[in-house]
């Protein structure tokens, strides 16, 4: 039997936004932003999503703006 670590298939994380050559993330683009929040509405950390620092900063800014405009939730009420 394979040892721990060997049994898991390992794939290197990469920044999806760099891959798509995204220059700027728009706070109005709630469809794209929704990929970077959890089902509870939290912003997915870099260590999970693999996003690069530049894009993560942009996501954070954009998600916060989108929340103000009620395009994205601050939290999901089904868990309240």
């Amino acid at each position, binding site marked *: 039997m394979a040892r721990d670590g060997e049994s898991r298939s390992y794939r290197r994380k990469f920044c999806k936004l760099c891959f798509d050559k*995204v220059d*700027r993330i*728009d706070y109005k683009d709630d*469809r794209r932003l929704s990929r970077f929040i959890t089902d509870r509405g939290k912003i997915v950390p870099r260590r999970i999503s693999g996003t690069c620092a530049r894009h993560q900063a942009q996501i954070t800014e954009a998600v916060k703006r989108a929340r103000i405009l*009620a395009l994205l939730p601050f939290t999901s009420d089904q868990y309240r």
Partner: protein
Amino acid sequence: MKLYETTIIYDPGLEEARINEELDRVTGPIAQAGGEVVEVQRWGKKKLAYNIKKRRDGTYIHVKHKSPATLIGEMDRRFRLNESVLRHLTVLAPKESPRAAEDAAKAETAARTEGDLRPEPAPTAAE
């Protein structure tokens, strides 16, 4: 003068004529203060991600404008006093780079094919 983007969420109960009236109250002072209204987008009635003032929907209006900085504070004050405004947000518009314009165009087409309500943007000078 800097380029700003203002998004306003109005009460969904307002009819078209009232919205136009409200919009004039936004665009009027901009022109008066020597600014310029670059673009007005009507996103229409959208579902809110969370309730605001017990409303589930809101009528979204997005205005791109060049305004003197002193007007932004005044606009903010007026939105706060206006009961029909559920929410408003004014941010500096991103500086136009060729890549950004391209991305925006791509995002727009993608959004449209998925049946988005947002209207076709006015063609820019770069195109």
